[in-house]
C-alpha cells in the first residue's frame, strides 16, 4: 500500500479517536510524551543538550566565537539560530537547501529566545563597534516523531543554560565563564484534531491536524512568541485556553531544561 493511502487511513482513524477525546498512543489531550534532557552531550560544543520528547530527538549545540557587531547595534552581541532538518531524521526530509519547514523551526525558536531576552546581548559585546561574541545556536533534528518546535527550543535552552564562554581560548579574558542566561522561554505546541485541541502532537497527529499553534512563555508570566501553522483555524476562546495550558506546561518544562528530567 502506498504511503499516501496509509497516511489517509491513519488520519481518518486519528480524527475518529479525537472525536471520542482519545489519542492513538493513549495519552490525554493535555498530556506530553515523556521528556528527557541530556546536558553536555557534545563536548566539542560550548554548550549542548539532547532532548527527547517521546520518539522525537533533537540535539542543540552552542558555539561562541568573536566577531564584529552589526553596524546598527554596535553595543550588542550577535545571536543566530539555525535548525537543520537533516534527512537522517525522517523519510520525509530530503537533502538540499533548508526547506520552509526548517526555516520555520529556526525562526520560531530564534524569536522566542530573542523576545524573552534569554541572553543580554549587550553583555556579549567586547569592544563597542569592533568586537563582540557571536553566539551560534545550531539545532539538529535526529529523530522526527513530531513537535519539533518544542523539542528544538528546549534543546536550545538546555544548551544555553549550560554553556561556557570560551574567553580564555580566544584570548579575551583570563578564564572561561558561564554564559549568563536571564530568562527561560519554552514553547508549547497544540494541534486541532476535529473539535479537540491536543498538546504535543506526534508526527501522524501533525499530518492529520487542522491547525497548529505554538505559544512561547517565560518564567515571569510573559507570552514571548506565538506561531500558527498548518491549514486550519482557532477561535479566540481556543487560543486563550491554550495560553493557560502553555503556562502550566511551561513551568514543568523549564525545570526540565535547567536540571532534572520528568
Amino acid at each position, binding site marked *: 500500500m502506498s504511503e499516501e493511502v496509509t497516511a489517509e487511513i491513519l488520519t481518518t482513524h486519528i480524527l475518529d479517536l479525537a472525536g471520542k477525546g482519545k489519542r492513538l498512543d493513549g495519552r490525554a489531550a493535555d498530556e506530553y510524551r515523556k521528556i528527557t534532557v541530556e546536558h553536555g552531550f557534545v563536548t*566539542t560544543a*560550548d554548550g549542548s543538550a539532547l532532548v527527547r520528547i517521546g520518539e522525537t530527538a533533537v540535539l542543540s549545540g552552542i558555539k561562541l566565537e568573536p566577531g564584529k557587531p552589526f553596524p546598527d547595534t554596535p553595543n550588542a552581541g550577535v545571536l543566530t539560530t539555525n535548525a537543520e532538518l*537533516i534527512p*537522517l531524521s525522517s523519510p520525509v526530509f530530503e537533502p538540499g537547501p533548508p526547506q520552509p519547514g526548517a526555516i520555520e523551526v529556526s525562526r520560531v525558536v530564534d524569536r522566542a529566545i530573542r523576545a524573552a531576552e534569554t541572553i543580554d546581548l549587550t553583555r556579549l559585546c567586547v569592544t563597542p563597534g569592533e568586537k563582540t561574541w557571536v553566539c551560534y545556536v*545550531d539545532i539538529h533534528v535526529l*529523530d522526527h*516523531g513530531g513537535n519539533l518546535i518544542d523539542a528544538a527550543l528546549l534543546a536550545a535552552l538546555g544548551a544555553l543554560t549550560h554553556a561556557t564562554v570560551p574567553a580564555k581560548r580566544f584570548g579575551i579574558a583570563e578564564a572561561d565563564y558561564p554564559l549568563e542566561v536571564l530568562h527561560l522561554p519554552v514553547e508549547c505546541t497544540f494541534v486541532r484534531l476535529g473539535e479537540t485541541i491536543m498538546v504535543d502532537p506526534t508526527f501522524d497527529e501533525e499530518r492529520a491536524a487542522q491547525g497548529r499553534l505554538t505559544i512561547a512563555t517565560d518564567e515571569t508570566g510573559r507570552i514571548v512568541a506565538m506561531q500558527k501553522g498548518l491549514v486550519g483555524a482557532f477561535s479566540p476562546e481556543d487560543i486563550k485556553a491554550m495560553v493557560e495550558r502553555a503556562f502550566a506546561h511551561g513551568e514543568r518544562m523549564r525545570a526540565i531544561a535547567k536540571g532534572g528530567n520528568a
Partner: protein
Amino acid sequence: MGSVGAKDVPVLLSPEGLRIDGRRVDELRPIKIQAGALKHADGSAFVEWGANKVMAAVYGPREVHPRHLQQNTKAVIQCKYNMAAFSVDERKRPGLDRRSQEISKVIAEAFESVVFAEEFPRTSIDVYIEVLQANAGTRCAGLVAASVALADAGIPMADLLPAVAVGKAGGAIILDLKKEEDNFGEADLPMALVPQSGRLVLLQMEGHMTREELSKALDLGVKGCRDIYEVMKQALRDRYMVTPGQEGAA
C-alpha cells in the same frame, strides 16, 4: 586543522612507547556501537568511538531522487556525510563542502562493493552519516555506523565493513589516530576492510611514510578492522538475538 589555542606540538609518543592518551601503538580507542538507535529510519546505528559521536541512518530501497540517477539494473547507493556545526572546536559552517562531498563519494563506493544492489533495480539506498562530535577518524566511524545501519535495515550484502585509520606520529606507526595525532602526526591512512575476502574497499592516505612503514601500517589496520568487526557483529546480536523463552520480547 590547527585549533585556536594550539601553539606547541605535543609529545605524541613517550620514551616508554605510550601515546598521548596512554595507549600503546597498536591499541584502539574504546568503541561502542548501538544498532537501531533511531525510530524513524529503516536502519540506524550510533557509534561512540573515543571522543567521536556519529549517527548513521539508512532509508530504502526507495524511489530515486533525483530521478535521473535511477539505474535500470541495480539500486544506486547515495551517501551523505555531514558534520554538525558544533562537532569541532571552531564552528563549521553548515552545509556541503568539498571535504564532505569527497568523503561521501568514497564511502558510497565502498558500500557499492559489498551491497547486492542488483537485487533492487530502479531504487535508491540512501545512507546518511551525521558527525555530532568529532575527534579524528570520523569517516571511519561514519562508515562503521553506516555499515551496521545497512544491516539493521535488512539490506543484503556480502559483508559488514569495519574501518579504521592508521597513521604515523612521533616516528611510530600507530593505530586509530586521535585528534592531536591527526593534526601533528606525519601520516593518516584511513581504510575499510571486507573481512571475509581480506580486501580493502576504502583507502586514502595523506602524509609521508616509507614503503616499510606503509606495509606495517596496512597490516596494523587490517588487524584493527578485524577487532572492530567483532564489535559490529556484537551490536547486531545485541539488537536481534532472542534467547529461548523470550521470543517476541524485543
